[in-house]
């Protein structure tokens, strides 16, 4: 077997045996269920815990199923990304810090195979989690609020998946760069949060931005994004992902000497 296959098998065993393959999708599924369910039962929930004065009448407009799906994505943007960052912050930095990388680096290791195997496994689990979460979330949304046009739903999921690919690429490149897992998490969260804040404050001046992928994803439910802006943003995201991959390979090779001997 070539090195990539060997290393991918190792990553698979790692994610299986430390249960990442189970608990990360579980979190996304849970978030996916909670959004439609809590929306549906909001009046009853408020009724029982709200401490509202006797006779209060609250009228809630029943949300559209599309709005519920967009709200699930909103949860993923906050909690989901945090979970992914924390789960994969130590992918490389942690191996160097603990010294487990030493026995790999002392061999004729291909750092492309090394980095890409980690990237592929993390992406598989992240996408699997997001897809399963959306799938289960949509099932409840469908039961409680009604159906969504399937093409729009797929466009929505794939657009958001591209954003997830970018996020994981950032996390892994940061993990290759930083001396330990905590700093890698801080760096990735810093980059993702700050750039999103900047984009939402000043972003009206540049419609082409990978940071708008989540906005564009949700807009499939309305009139759809401006196609030129969307494709340019998606293309830019792909270029960024490729760049982060190359950067990650380069840095993990350059910083190999920092592994604990």
């Amino acid at each position, binding site marked *: *077997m070539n090195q990539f296959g060997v290393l991918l098998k190792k990553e698979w065993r790692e994610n299986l045996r430390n249960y990442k393959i189970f608990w990360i999708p579980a979190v996304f599924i849970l978030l996916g269920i909670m959004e439609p369910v809590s929306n549906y039962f909001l009046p009853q929930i408020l009724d029982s815990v709200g401490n509202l004065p006797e006779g209060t009448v609250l009228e809630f407009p029943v949300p559209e199923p599309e709005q519920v799906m967009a709200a699930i994505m909103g949860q993923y943007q906050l909690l989901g990304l945090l979970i992914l960052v924390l789960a994969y912050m130590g992918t490389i930095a942690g191996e160097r810090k603990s010294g487990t990388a030493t*026995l790999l680096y002392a*061999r*004729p290791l291909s750092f492309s195979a090394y980095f890409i195997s980690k990237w592929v496994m993390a992406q598989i689990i992240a996408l699997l989690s997001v897809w399963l979460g959306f799938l289960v979330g949509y099932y409840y949304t469908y039961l409680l609020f009604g159906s969504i046009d399937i093409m729009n739903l797929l466009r929505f999921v794939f657009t958001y998946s591209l954003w997830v690919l970018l996020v994981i690429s950032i996390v892994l490149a940061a993990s290759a760069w930083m001396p330990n897992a905590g700093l890698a998490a801080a760096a990735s969260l810093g980059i993702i949060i700050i750039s999103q804040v900047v984009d939402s404050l000043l972003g009206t001046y540049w419609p082409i931005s990978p940071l708008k992928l989540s906005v564009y994803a949700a807009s499939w439910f309305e009139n759809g994004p401006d196609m030129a802006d969307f494709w340019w943003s998606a293309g830019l995201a792909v270029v960024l992902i490729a760049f982060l991959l190359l950067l990650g390979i380069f840095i993990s090779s350059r910083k*190999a000497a920092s*592994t604990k*001997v």
Partner: protein
Amino acid sequence: MNLLEVKGLTKSYKGNLAVDRVSFALEERTATALIGPNGSGKTTTLSMIAGLLKESGGSIQRDFKSGVGFLPQYPQFFPWLSALEFTEMAAQISGVDGKKARQQSIRTLEFVGLGSAVNKKTGTFSGGMRQRLGLAQAIVHQPKLLLLDEPVSALDPTGRREIMDLLKSLQQDTTILYSTHILNDAEKMTDQLLFLKEGKLVEQGSLSEVKSRYAEPRIRLRFETEQAAARFEDRKLWPMNRDRNVIALPLSGEGPTMQQVLAVLANEESGIAGVDRQSASLEEIFLKVAGNK
């Protein structure tokens, strides 16, 4: 034939020289002990030869393709892999292909005494087992050069003996460079001694060469009683030191030869109980080299 040639090897960290112009060569199928006090640059030297660290200067010339086996002082394994899975992965990354990797892994694990633990997770291993697994992953791909950083210092005397015996049996087709501060071991398995101090190579040669350089050989006379020893000392035949009933005669300088001493002892009732020739132990040499210069 030289398997490895190191010339002027240097490593500096922000201006501090951790290894300072070290040169040596390893002949094929020999064992070389790298000794020296803590912080003398042993680990740094091994790391550079293993390819983990980039040298700041000098050159490392390897005359082989089949790779290096490296055992760090505290080997760390992925706790969720079994011993066999880890060893197999190590072999495959070093270029051994699938089926062969598994066979060689099983054989190697049996060789290092982990035959009954092949399917156990490495996270449950004791210190001794980790060291054995560390050795297994270093030799599983049958490298020509084996680099071992303190291979036995974490082990108890029994484990130490066993690992040293394993290493000796590997010597037939492997070149071994190992660091140690357990000088007894170095004395038992070494064709060449390299003595590092503050990053510099301060002493180098075969065990007997180094010993003869520092030896100050002595003849030791053990008398039956202290009085007999005192009587012998009073004759002031040669320069000597007495410690109770034992007299030491330095052989260098104005000292006598063994024959002269035996002749004197044969011709009288000296009450002698034993005669032997002593040379300095590696430990004495270590203390001398580490202390001086």
